[in-house]
């Protein structure tokens, strides 16, 4: 589903963020991506999201070579991937419902379908009673769950999460991780970047470790 072949990314200022990274994530897999900050986790995510393009090597997502995705097709590519951000990236002037509905509005679903799917997604993350609440009135964990609901509402087959538990206490963190596992069990490919080694090593999934842009562990599929 996600396939990196000797991918390197060098930024304009000469910093090598990724060096010859190769790995493959199969459909229905849940994989953790770890490493110190600056090791290249975010860069790797950005390449998948087409926020950046690889300097060398090939990134394949769902059989599509990302180098061949034209600029104008980037939005379409992003609609196929659900993303959860560390800082939530919510619209703070809109209620929870509108935030979760955003990807569906962008894809052009009709209102009834939007309502149905948004409630289903909110139900999955346990926030069904908060659909009219403004994000600022929610706790950090709840905001993160709104972000997750938004990421899964369009039923993507790939779910990326960049430090989804970054600001949460251990208990909330493992709740969030259980959510990701639940989505994985219904067939979503999940890639989670996290430096919370204690948490992710308990969960017994494959772990990719980056160090200074190189993949030092987890390259092979088990």
């Amino acid at each position, binding site marked *: 589903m996600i396939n990196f072949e000797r991918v390197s990314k060098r930024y304009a200022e000469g910093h090598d963020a990724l060096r010859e990274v190769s790995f493959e994530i199969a459909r229905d897999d849940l994989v953790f991506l770890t490493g110190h900050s600056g090791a290249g986790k975010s860069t790797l995510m950005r390449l998948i*999201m087409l*926020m950046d393009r690889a300097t060398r090597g090939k990134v394949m997502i*769902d*059989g*599509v070579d990302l180098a061949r*995705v034209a600029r*104008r*097709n980037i*939005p*379409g*590519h*992003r*609609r*196929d991937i659900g*993303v959860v*951000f560390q800082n939530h*990236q*919510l*619209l703070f*002037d809109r209620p929870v419902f509108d935030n979760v509905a*955003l*990807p569906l*509005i*962008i*894809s*052009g*679903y*009709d*209102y009834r379908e939007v309502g149905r799917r948004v409630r289903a997604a909110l139900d999955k993350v346990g926030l069904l009673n908060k659909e009219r609440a403004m994000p600022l009135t929610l706790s950090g964990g709840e905001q993160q769950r709104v972000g997750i609901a*938004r990421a899964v509402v*369009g*039923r993507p087959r790939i779910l990326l999460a960049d430090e989804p538990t970054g600001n949460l206490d251990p208990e909330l963190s493992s709740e969030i991780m259980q959510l990701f596992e639940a989505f994985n069990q219904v067939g979503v490919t999940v890639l989670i970047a996290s430096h919370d080694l204690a948490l992710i090593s308990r969960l017994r999934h494959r772990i990719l470790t980056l160090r200074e842009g190189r993949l030092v562990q987890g390259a092979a599929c088990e």
Partner: protein
Amino acid sequence: MNKPRLEGARQSRTRFADRYNAWLRHHRLSAADSLHRVLSNKLSTLMTFLVIGIALALPVGLNVALDNATQLSAGWDSPSQISLFLRDSVTGEEAAALATELEQRPDISAVQVVTSEDALAEFSALSGFADVLASLEDNPLPNLLLVTPTTGLEGAAVGGLRTKLGERQEVSEAVLDMEWLQRLNSLMELSRRIVMAIGGLLVVGVVLILGNTIRLAIENRREEIVIVKLVGGSNPFVRRPFLYTGLWFGFGGGLVAALLVTLCLWFLRAPVSQLAALYQSDFTLKGLGLMGSLNLLVLGGLLGLAGAWLAVTRHLADIEPR
């Protein structure tokens, strides 16, 4: 949305009608949402409406004034009159024959003969020099033909007619009586050009003002745009609400302009009709009319759209998720 997918993703199954409906839905949503934003920000919206309204009202008001002046002067426009002073050798009968001949021309509608005797009689009656004139041996006045050109003949053609008639051997001098009218017309033409130039400048100003307003709106919603782009919003999707914002500002400005012009005309109406009454004229000020006001609204909307387009193409592409 038009990317071919290898595996049956949702959108590839979306039929054209669904896509059209989605497009329409988002247009409605953007229009309503941006109208709501424009109206909820009362004070700054009012200021923007006023700025645009005043900038539009100025040239439009001047144009309405010019239209009224044209309407007023149309009564005196052509036909102006050409006076043909005939040579002394031409007798009254010959003058009458010439008049009949000239009346056949297509560019002349009427010729009036004023014989030297008539002229002398009129002159002595009006001047009070009757005794002096009676003592003269010869009548010093020539025979005169008053030529009225066909209605609707343009200034240049009337001038040409005057030259042509002046070249005839019976004619000693041909005088166009109403050269001042041509000067007035040139003046009006000049004013119209000036109004057009001012209008052009102000229109550019309106587009820039609106562009700047939209640029600020874009800046204010920068984070939102980043988020929308992150979850897959295309450029047209992000652009749409801002284009509608421009449209609403433009409409509002056009409405204010129409109101201002109407208000000014209403303010001037009473003194103008008083003045007209003094000149025994039933002239009344003509306003914008319904169509004129609607045109102004549409013009405002188009300018708003243009300004928004300018801002959006310049600034929106810069905002990418980092």
